[in-house]
């Protein structure tokens, strides 16, 4: 792999965004205006990171076909962890990406300021090109103050959520923003406590256990929450030691919308299956980093804005990084 960030897009705003991502991640930016040109660069230069316009299904299909022809979808040069799709539509409108074998990262092209969005995303890209993308400190600016709390029991979750909400209010987040972020913390902690634990052959241990059950979080069941704020972005990471995250299941949950079809209450499972989707639709971005059977870190980011309108409409993304 060469230290190249390849952008496959003809859009000027993508170019401004990618240039900043490359600068922050210390990569050389190259631009291909068509999928064919991009596939040729992949074949010849093995770029470390690929950002590609996948605004509609035709655009995505052309890219997939070009890669298949010039490189091969299952070539060593193609790694979903390094492929970042850019679209102007929300996740539920791009099922072709969710189902793609190439899916690693989804960038919603509501950059606002492409340079600023690129700087934030560049830190994430820099983390992903290192050996393991673990640690909140890699994802925020260097001046970020990070605090980590280890939870001893599931009943400590609500206390942790309220404490983080108060921290955000003290950091001058609007109360409505603080509530949204507190809810995000609630969801990622609940997932780490009840959904991450699996047995030796990967079967969920607590799928039907009520989420109000008091359980000790000891040994492998320990859960940590880290909070960092760099004056502009807040990042919150929940960590578990199971490394059981399933990409297909995750994407199916997070892209589900219940505005047209009804939400059906399943009594066979204790979780609701709507937490992450709600967080994403409220303005949050996600970074999921999971090493199989070892560790999962789920980080949610929010930008502090002057108004809630900007908060909800902020630049956002869903990134996944899987190590096997």
């Amino acid at each position, binding site marked *: 792999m060469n230290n190249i960030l390849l952008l496959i897009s003809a859009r000027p705003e993508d170019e401004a965004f990618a240039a900043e991502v490359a600068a922050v991640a210390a990569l050389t930016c190259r631009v291909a205006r068509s999928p064919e040109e991009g596939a040729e660069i992949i074949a010849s230069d093995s770029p470390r990171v690929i950002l590609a316009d996948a605004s509609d299904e035709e655009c995505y299909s052309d890219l997939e076909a070009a890669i298949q022809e010039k490189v091969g979808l299952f070539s060593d040069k193609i790694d979903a962890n390094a492929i970042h799709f850019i679209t102007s539509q929300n996740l539920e409108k791009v099922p072709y990406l969710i189902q793609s074998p190439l899916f690693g990262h989804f960038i919603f092209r509501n950059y606002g300021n492409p340079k600023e969005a690129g700087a934030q995303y560049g830190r994430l890209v820099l983390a992903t090109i290192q050996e393991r993308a673990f640690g909140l400190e890699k994802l925020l600016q260097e001046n970020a103050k990070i605090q980590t709390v280890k939870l001893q029991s599931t009943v400590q979750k*609500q206390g942790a959520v309220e404490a983080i909400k108060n921290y955000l209010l003290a950091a001058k987040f*609007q*109360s*409505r923003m603080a*509530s949204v972020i*507190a*809810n995000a913390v*609630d*969801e990622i902690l*609940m997932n780490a406590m009840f959904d991450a634990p699996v047995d030796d052959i990967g079967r969920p241990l607590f799928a039907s256990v*009520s*989420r*109000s059950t008091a359980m000790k979080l000891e040994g492998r069941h320990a859960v940590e929450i880290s909070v960092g704020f760099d004056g502009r972005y807040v990042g919150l990471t929940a960590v578990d030691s199971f490394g059981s995250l399933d990409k297909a299941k995750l994407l199916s949950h997070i892209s589900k*919308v*219940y*505005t*047209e*079809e*009804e*939400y059906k*209450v399943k009594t066979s499972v*204790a*979780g*609701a*299956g*709507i*937490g992450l989707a*709600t967080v994403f*639709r*409220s303005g949050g971005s996600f970074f999921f980093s999971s090493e199989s059977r070892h560790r999962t870190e789920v980080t949610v980011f929010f930008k502090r804005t*002057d*108004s*809630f*309108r900007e908060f*909800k*409409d902020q630049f956002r993304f869903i990134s996944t990084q899987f190590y096997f």
Partner: protein
Amino acid sequence: MLNVVKEQIGSILSIRLSGAIEESTNLEKLLGPPAPEMHIHCKEVSRINSVGVKLWIKYFQDAQSRGSKLKFSECSTAIVEQINLISNFIANGVVESIFVPFSCGKCRSELVGLFKTEDLKKVKFKLPTLKCSKCTGPATFDDIPEEYFAFLMR
């Protein structure tokens, strides 16, 4: 933690909710068996997590299937967000009024104004600029209209 104040007014069970709705919220226990007519006031509901949403839908769908008439009033921004995200959140009930978020352009204070849903439809969701109660500066609607009023546009 959710607090509930119940009052029987003739045939109507009036319920005032305040606090967070989450996994430990037992609506069956707090609200009791569904009454034929229920008015649910949600002014003080600050937060609802995903398991809280599931418990809420389960309770009110059950109430609806037993023939209860449901009316939701003074819905907080947290409740409005869920009504917009989940089509069956109010289990075919009626939303009478909602709180609408405003933000002061001068002192950045957060404000809310109570509006009847019928009135919002009449003005086609075009809201007036209000006077900030703290500094008298101009306070404007602070959300995305197509999203915040989506349930009224369906």
